[in-house]
């Protein structure tokens, strides 16, 4: 029996159908009638969705929006991989111009519309209030505004595609971005708007976690997913204004010809890089910290075990957030910044590896002494450890100054960031999505198909991106439309690894499409599930699947930590 049920007597003494009971039946009677409809059916009509203040509906809308953009960005990626099957020009894109636009849009869409928002806005919005035992976030209307800004920003970026497109690379380096004829201003406006969506979500989450925890839920009892969201929110609030201002300055330069970054007008192009990376490096921690949070949930619940090193994981999230602001120059070792700057940034970059390593070791340590289920969320979680370890370790090559000179701006970098961003964030997202799908939809997906999807994604991902490490270390630069101009022996080598990578991308794509298929199918035909299919202890498992509109039938109280499985199991055996 759950702790909550023991604490709060119900009005008629009967076991309330809303609240979960670990495996116990309701003494032979029919389950009590659901008193309230779920959040999905509570209000009807399009307007009730588009103007909702229910964090769960907002989370679902974000999920649909973000995954739609993910598919668009993914299609650009497939086009790029197809082009690179042969060294010469013209395999998919007739000219370099088309190719340049494709990789730019792939990067911009994936970075700003997918990887940054996916876990906080979709899963975070849905589960933060549930996990702290609240009815909603602190500022529900602000939450809706965040979502509308996301849609507006996304629409602006889509408009950019049709209004001249963008060919600067997602990094908008000057002076190329000040002189190119493509729709730079429209794109930067889109990013500017999206930035506000991110900032407002961050503000909302910080206040919610501070002020709306259920009675008895101390900071050291909140699920680690929330520590992760908290650290992420701090970065979102502090760093995002910088990219907004930077892109605004870029626009001002384009429109008014004021020389800030353009040397032809007396500006400094390396200054742009400092400003840009001051945000964009912390941004990658906005991407990965929530992913780390998901993994903490997965490894505990699915091995029914306490987390190893709760404090270490919580504090490492905060320290990563702080140090993340101090390492931006590692993107600029060969750009012309001073040697002293290079030295300091390299040192700090290695420093940030330590709390990250601590987390990975702690998750593996969590498995020890557990009771592990190899279901889909866990398989994705294990894949995460495998893939993220490669991503993180390859970061060491890039933090080392002399080795970075060789590897910078080559495919080694492309491989590294896809390993951590796609391999890290996307895999963790898939884990969380499969873990919380039954809670969000009330349905279970086909476990068989899901495992196949996981295998295809794992194999496809590694094949696509591991090949790129070899490409990079052998000298293949990034953002290259063709590679037929190097010496013939090298053309052969590059062709081999490019083909290996492209073949992998086909496998990866098939896994993603399969996943989309069985998840959508499960919404209509999936088996209905109860409140706690995984036997979790955190508060979200105390609600219905899917939850009612205001989450809990009565105010929850917290009397234990989120991963006290050994106690729960002992009580069950008793």
């Amino acid at each position: 029996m759950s702790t909550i049920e023991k604490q709060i007597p119900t009005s008629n003494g009967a076991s309330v159908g809303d609240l979960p009971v670990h495996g116990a039946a309701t003494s032979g009677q029919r389950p009590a009638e659901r008193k309230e409809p779920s959040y999905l059916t509570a209000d009807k009509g399009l307007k009730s969705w588009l103007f909702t203040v229910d964090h769960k509906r907002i989370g679902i809308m974000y999920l649909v929006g973000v995954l739609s953009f993910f598919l668009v960005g993914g299609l650009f990626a497939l086009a790029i991989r197809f082009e690179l099957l042969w060294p010469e020009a013209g395999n998919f894109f007739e000219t370099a111009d088309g190719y340049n636009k494709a990789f730019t849009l792939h990067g911009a869409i994936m970075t700003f519309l997918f990887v940054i928002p996916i876990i906080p806005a979709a899963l975070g919005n849905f589960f933060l209030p549930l996990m702290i035992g609240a009815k909603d976030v602190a500022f529900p209307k602000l939450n809706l505004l965040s979502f509308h800004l996301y849609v507006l920003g996304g629409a602006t970026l889509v408009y950019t595609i049709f209004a001249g497109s963008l060919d600067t690379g997602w990094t908008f380096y000057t002076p190329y971005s000040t002189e190119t004829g493509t729709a730079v201003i429209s794109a930067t406006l889109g990013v500017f708007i999206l930035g506000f969506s991110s900032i407002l979500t961050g503000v909302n989450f910080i206040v919610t976690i501070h002020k709306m925890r259920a009675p008895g839920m101390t900071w050291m009892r909140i699920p680690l997913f929330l520590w992760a969201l908290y650290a992420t929110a701090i970065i979102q609030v502090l760093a995002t204004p910088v990219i907004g201002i930077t892109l605004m300055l870029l626009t001002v330069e384009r429109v008014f010809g004021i020389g800030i970054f353009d040397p032809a007008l007396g500006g400094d192009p390396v200054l742009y890089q400092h400003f840009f990376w001051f945000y964009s490096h912390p941004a990658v921690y906005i991407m990965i910290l929530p992913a780390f949070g998901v993994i903490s949930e997965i490894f505990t619940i699915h091995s029914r075990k306490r987390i190893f090193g709760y404090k270490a994981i919580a504090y490492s999230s905060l320290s990563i957030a702080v140090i993340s602001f101090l390492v931006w120059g590692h993107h600029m070792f060969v750009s012309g910044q001073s040697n002293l700057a290079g030295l300091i940034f390299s040192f700090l970059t290695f420093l940030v590896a330590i709390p990250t390593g601590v987390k990975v070791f702690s998750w593996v340590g969590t498995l020890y002494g557990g009771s592990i289920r190899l279901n889909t969320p866990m398989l994705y979680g294990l894949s995460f450890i495998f893939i993220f370890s490669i991503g993180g370790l390859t970061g060491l090559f890039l933090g080392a100054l002399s080795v970075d000179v060789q590897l910078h701006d080559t495919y080694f970098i492309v491989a590294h960031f896809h390993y951590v961003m796609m391999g890290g964030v996307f895999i963790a997202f898939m884990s969380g999505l499969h873990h919380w799908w039954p809670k969000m939809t009330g349905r279970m997906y086909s476990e068989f198909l899901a495992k196949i999807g996981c295998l295809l994604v794992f194999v496809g991902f590694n094949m696509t991106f591991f090949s790129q490490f070899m490409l990079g270390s052998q000298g293949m630069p990034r953002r290259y439309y063709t590679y037929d101009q190097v010496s013939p022996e090298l053309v052969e080598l590059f062709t081999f690894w490019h083909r290996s990578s492209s073949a992998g991308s086909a496998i990866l794509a098939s896994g993603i499409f399969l996943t989309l298929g069985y998840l959508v199918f499960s919404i209509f035909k999936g088996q209905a599930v109860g409140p706690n299919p995984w036997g979790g202890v955190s508060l979200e498992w105390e609600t219905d699947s899917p939850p009612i509109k205001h989450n809990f039938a009565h105010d929850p109280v917290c009397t234990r930590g989120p991963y006290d499985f050994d106690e729960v199991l002992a009580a069950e055996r008793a």
Partner: protein
Amino acid sequence: MIGNLPLVSGIAVPDLLAIASKRGFWLPQQASTVAADTDNLFFFIYWLSIVFFALIVGAMVLFVVKFRRKKNVPETSSAIEGNTKLEVAWAVIPGILLIAIFVWGFRGWIALAVPPGEAIEIQVRAKKWLWSFDYRGTNINGVDEITVPVDTPVKLIMSSEDVIHSFFVPAFRVKKDIVPNRYSVLWFTPTKLGEFDVLCTEYCGNGHSRMLSKVTVVTRDEYDKWMTRGGLPEGVEGKALGEYLFKAKGCKTCHSITTDRMGLPCPPLGGKYGSQEQLVTGEMQQIDDNYIRESIMKPNAKVVKGYAPVMPTFAGQIDDKQMDALIQYIASLK
């Protein structure tokens, strides 16, 4: 040397895995004085990564197998919450290894940053989308590839005429961004004879993946002879000289020599001599000697319809003899 181990960057390291003379699985051949140290650090990090990866994934797999939920057996879960000694160890020990990597990388970096005093100085001008090299203090100007003597330091003083480019020679393990309105310096001492690719590694637009060059490393004797020839190939005149210049001056980066445009930003030149082309203004233009000369000197005066005015001028870089040779060559293209 310490025993038989090479002493590199102050640290004695067995050169076990870097295959010096030919391309290895991971890295190109080592063709400069700094390559061995960079590679040794690369492989130090590599083996460290393999060990840690094996530990992490190995432990993970072991625990999954050992602690897998067993059916028909009551479930138990350990109450372990942590282990302070272990946690400190796995923060401190990696920390020490990371500092070692940092120090080694930093030392290699300083070696890369400080050119030797006596070096051949070459001015590099990068522009969309070609390289132009001037050998300081000589009459060798405006060549698109460099020839240097082996075992001699070479210092490049680089600047861009437009956007940011980057000079990268994988075989030498050197790279540096080339920024407009400032000079950046890169140096190397080649240790092997041969031709080595130079690639632009900062995205610069449509010609980015064609902005390649070569460093040709020859013996000191060969280099001296090359210098006295003014950097030109031996005994080459007329159309053959034109063919050489067409490549050396970077024309080939943007103009195809057949009738097929090949995805390049500028008009193909095959079969064009003697024909008529329409300009952006609408008027028809005869493609003759004068038009070719004008296009090389003042390229944006008469642009062919369907193309953008992106060609840079070569005024001051091509003398009359070279102009003649180029026109002869272009006239011969089918």
